[in-house]
């Protein structure tokens, strides 16, 4: 039996002294918190009629704290990510984070498309709430613009409304069951480019697997990466990156170990089937390496050798960006989620430089800590 004493567990290495950009941090608003930020005509649907976001996932998150780390839930029963002071203590200060990119919780793009007018108004309220309650409180926090992707022109107007905020760095689209590369959604990408913003795609509890919702949560959670593969493929073969060559795309909360397969497979299909999509002008792998970044969480246990092979197989050490997914139960520790002993150059890229280079509005990193 391997019995590990705490005293001999590897302590955090250079990651502790490296700049850290955390590319996935969840602040959370219950619908009632958004009421003051909603246009008056919409408020009664929350205060009186009890609107709640739809959730089609037929299981609970099978963890001690449900969706959250048990120690991130608040004593008064509110979910993790509801309180700035707790987030500051447990994440920003605990791990000396340079910047944390807020990715939210309530996002209309991951909900059913019905009632688009309300959803669009709700996203405006969410963005104003995020700015006032979070971004205004700590310069280490960077924001994501939430939109209702099911109404792309309304989404573009919202991006134009708040896109100039200096610490809004991306537009975020939660994934449900629509491939977002289709031309219908392109006004969103055009608005992102117009406002110097990246696009983040984030998993949601309403995202199915390739076969819908299996019988058990463990099946669904094992297959999280499937919808990310679908979105990358959709964006590439619908020509989004050829049409918007300045665009940077982040895939968030899908992990990263699927990326080598995706590059290899899509390149091979392009060699065989390119004439079906003649507007795609390069090998998909080249497009991925130039335009896509993948947030690391949720990581899987692996050796350093296996991790370095995986990076090598991508033919790029610039694709992966560290993320914690705080405060959720599968939070990845900056100190212990990736193998110990990663070479310093690669470590700097993983923990900060790759994200810095793919968010056009990312502020300067602190100096003197590397």
């Amino acid at each position: 039996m391997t019995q590990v004493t705490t005293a001999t567990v590897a302590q955090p290495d250079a990651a502790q002294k490296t700049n850290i950009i955390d590319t996935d941090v969840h602040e959370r608003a219950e619908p009632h918190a958004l009421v003051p930020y909603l246009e008056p005509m919409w408020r009664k649907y929350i205060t009186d009629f009890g609107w709640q976001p739809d959730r089609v996932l037929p299981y609970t998150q099978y963890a001690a704290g449900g969706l959250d780390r048990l120690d991130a839930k608040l004593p008064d029963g509110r979910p993790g990510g509801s309180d700035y002071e707790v987030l500051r203590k447990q994440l920003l200060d605990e791990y000396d984070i340079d910047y944390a990119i807020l990715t939210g919780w309530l996002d209309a793009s991951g909900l059913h498309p019905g009632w688009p007018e309300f959803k669009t108004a709700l996203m405006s309220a969410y963005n104003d709430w995020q700015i006032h309650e979070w971004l205004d409180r700590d310069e280490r926090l960077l924001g994501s613009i939430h939109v209702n992707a099911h109404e792309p022109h309304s989404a573009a107007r919202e991006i134009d409304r708040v896109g100039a905020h200096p610490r809004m760095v991306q537009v975020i689209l939660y994934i449900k069951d629509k491939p977002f590369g289709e031309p219908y959604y392109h006004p969103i990408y055009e608005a992102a480019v117009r406002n110097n913003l990246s696009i983040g795609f984030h998993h949601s509890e309403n995202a199915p697997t390739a076969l819908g919702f299996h019988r058990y949560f463990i099946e669904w959670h094992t297959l999280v990466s499937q919808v990310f593969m679908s979105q990358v493929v959709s964006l590439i073969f619908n020509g989004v990156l050829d049409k918007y060559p300045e665009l940077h795309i982040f895939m968030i909360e899908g992990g990263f170990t699927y990326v080598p397969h995706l590059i290899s497979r899509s390149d091979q299909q392009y060699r065989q089937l390119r004439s079906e999509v003649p507007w795609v002008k390069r090998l998909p792998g080249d497009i991925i390496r130039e335009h896509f970044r993948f947030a690391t969480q949720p990581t899987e246990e692996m050796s350093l050798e296996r991790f370095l092979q995986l990076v090598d197989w991508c033919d790029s050490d610039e694709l992966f960006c560290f993320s914690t997914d705080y405060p959720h139960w599968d939070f990845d520790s900056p100190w212990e989620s990736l193998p110990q002993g990663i070479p310093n150059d690669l470590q700097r890229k993983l923990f900060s430089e790759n994200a810095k280079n793919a968010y056009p509005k990312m502020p300067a990193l602190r100096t003197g800590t590397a």
Partner: protein
Amino acid sequence: MKQVVCRSSELDAGQQIRTQLGPIPVVVIRSWKGTLHALAAKCLHQGGPLDEGKIYEHHATTKDAGEYVLDPGREVLKCPWHGYEYDIQTGCTVFDPSRAIQTFDAYEEGDDIVVRMKLPSPK
């Protein structure tokens, strides 16, 4: 090395408390049937604070899909982060008994609960 943790009356069945044994953070548990157990309080996976985890009954291995059976008397401590489960008696992870956290002796001494490094097994 031994350490007084708390008064015996301060730890009810199904509860746990954190203490420090030299440099080692330790979680002391009183099981639902009243026995005391002590384990290193840092998860093997990513260092999650096991003293903030939760004690559950162990789900026994079953034969068929859809069959759920609790394992009477066997309790596990579930990490508050990723949910790794440790047998509170042995410190072994339930998915791989070859992976375990350090365990300590925990017992009552007078009105106190005490933990200490495990004594070598008699040969």
